[in-house]
């Protein structure tokens, strides 16, 4: 096996499928940034693409591309680790490939329809064929069904492969989490006129995906990644995965309440949402203590510096984006002013990037390393590794910059529009035309370009890193799960 050459012989079957998902994910990441920039420009130049490609279209593609690329990254990560973890080949690889192409073509058709048909009359046909018109889950119903079918194939591949091969604690949590992930999507797949009921279930999908099941999925990928890259002991990693599940679901499931303050739901959600929101940072505190403990008692050798750097970015990003930015405006006493302002987009940008974009990028770097025959990716890379370092810096500076710009705009908006202006249309526009707000939008655009530069560099680096490198990386062995041990029954 040649080192430094992109050769699919370096990959097992699941990994060959995984890199397809990763490639599509990167393409969608680029699309996310592109449409984000277009939407951001429309704040500065309202006539830009007016009545041609309006803000609602750009913004819809921006957030949908994000959701799908992250999901593709997760699916790819699972296919990446599945054969190692199960000890056998993926049982339905052909089916898995079919699902990939189905999913990717469905996404392409949906985006083409978003861009060229955009909207439709107020009939059921529009919702089935064009656009469902509900933020984040705009995909028309036919695509919803396609997504569910693809997720079922994915679920079958995961569950059946582990069942035929072997179970472990990690795969047990993973498979149960996938059931929840797919099941929750169904909560967003029906029409209801009553908008309070509509948003009640809508939040089941959105919140219980990003603040519960996605977090646990990432926990599984991290657990496996820690064994793979740092040689961490399986028993310990698995125990901590359980601890995290207990803390995440313990605080995150009823943390859903912080979305039920203002949509018509009863007042008791104030107490439930407030209390569990205060608990939600606890898993983060646990991670801080455990990370310090681990780095203190071990001297880990790390064979993939870009991946480790992105994992560190993940730890910080998750802490600030979800923890600090979330808690700043989550209690109802203040959320009354910040709900539905640029505060939310400030939080959204940092949290999605910090918690999920970072971990996906780390996995991409692990993948490219193996793809090139376990090539050296630690210190002393060609050109001093400037591309990965600069893309890391530009992406983080870009997103943090946008977050701060939106924070200032959001602060101003919650103050002028909500507290002073009484949330009327004139109050809204008084806030939108305020110099603080407009400057925030300019800075957001500027940092958006910084982010875009980081993405370009990232793609360039992923394509070239390790090319022509002749040194091999020293990779730790991953411990196999104990046959017949406690972990073996975890999936039951």
């Amino acid at each position, binding site marked *: 096996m040649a080192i430094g050459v992109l050769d699919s012989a370096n990959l097992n079957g699941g990994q060959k499928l995984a890199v397809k998902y990763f490639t599509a994910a990167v393409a969608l990441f680029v699309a996310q940034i592109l449409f984000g920039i277009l939407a951001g420009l429309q704040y500065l130049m309202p006539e830009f693409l007016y009545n041609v490609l309006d803000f609602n279209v750009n913004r819809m593609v921006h957030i949908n591309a994000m959701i799908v690329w992250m999901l593709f990254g997760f699916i790819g990560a699972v296919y990446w680790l599945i054969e190692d973890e199960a000890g056998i080949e993926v049982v339905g690889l052909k089916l898995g490939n079919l699902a990939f192409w189905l999913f990717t073509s469905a996404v392409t058709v949906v985006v083409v329809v978003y861009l060229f048909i955009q909207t439709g009359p107020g009939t059921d046909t529009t919702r089935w064929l064009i656009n469902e018109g509900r933020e984040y889950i705009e995909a028309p119903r036919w695509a919803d069904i396609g997504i569910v079918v693809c997720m079922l194939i994915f679920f079958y591949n995961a569950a059946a492969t582990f069942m035929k091969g072997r179970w472990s604690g990690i795969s047990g949590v993973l498979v149960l989490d996938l059931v929840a992930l797919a099941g929750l999507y169904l909560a967003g797949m029906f029409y209801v006129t009553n908008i309070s009921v509509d948003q009640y279930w809508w939040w089941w999908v959105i919140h219980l995906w990003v603040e519960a099941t996605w977090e646990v999925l990432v926990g599984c990928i991290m657990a496996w990644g820690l064994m793979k890259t740092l*040689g961490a002991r399986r028993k310990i990693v698995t125990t901590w995965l359980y601890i995290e599940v207990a803390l995440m679901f313990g605080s995150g499931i009823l943390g859903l309440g912080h979305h039920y303050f203002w949509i018509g739901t009863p007042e008791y959600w104030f107490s439930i949402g*407030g209390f569990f929101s205060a608990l939600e940072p606890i898993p983060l*505190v646990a991670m801080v203590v455990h990370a310090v403990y681990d780095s203190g008692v071990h001297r880990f050798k790390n064979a993939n510096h870009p991946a480790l750097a992105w994992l560190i970015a993940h730890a910080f990003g998750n802490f600030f984006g979800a923890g600090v930015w979330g808690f700043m*405006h989550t209690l*109802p006493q203040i959320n009354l002013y910040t709900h539905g302002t640029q505060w939310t987009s400030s939080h959204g940008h940092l949290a999605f990037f910090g918690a999920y974009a970072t971990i996906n990028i780390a996995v991409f770097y692990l993948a490219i390393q193996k793809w090139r025959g376990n090539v050296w990716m630690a210190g002393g890379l060609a050109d001093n590794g400037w591309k990965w370092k600069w893309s890391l810096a530009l992406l983080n500076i870009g997103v943090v910059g946008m977050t701060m710009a939106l924070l200032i705009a959001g602060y101003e908006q919650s103050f002028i529009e909500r507290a002073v202006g009484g949330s009327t249309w004139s109050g809204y526009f008084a806030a939108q035309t305020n110099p603080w707000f407009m400057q925030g939008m300019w800075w957001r655009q500027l940092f958006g370009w910084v982010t875009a530069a980081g993405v370009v560099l990232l793609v360039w680096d992923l394509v070239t890193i390790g090319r022509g490198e002749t040194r091999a990386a020293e990779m730790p062995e991953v411990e196999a799960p104990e046959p017949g041990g406690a972990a073996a029954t975890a999936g039951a």
Partner: protein
Amino acid sequence: MIEPVALENFFIAFFSAAMVIICGALYALLFAYARVHRQPRLMPLAYGAYGLHFISVMVLAYAMNLNGFWQIVVVAMLVGYLLAPHGIWYLCQGTHTAEAAGGAGDGSSSG
């Protein structure tokens, strides 16, 4: 049920909420670091961070008008953040005993 934040307390409300989380995590970080590197000199700093956390929670409680039921949340934050790092620390030690006893068998995790 809730008393919305007063206009003049806006900044304090946001700032103290951020400090609650940051100081809480800083306390956890310093606490774990002092323990793992056996540097008891750092422990007062850790409790100093907790002190800041305590103050932040109090300011938050004032700015966000946390009265009635909300005082339970205040107490939960004060006690929870104080005890959580201790608990997690014991869990770290407990879960890693197998590793300490198992010794350098796998080479990569000894230290």
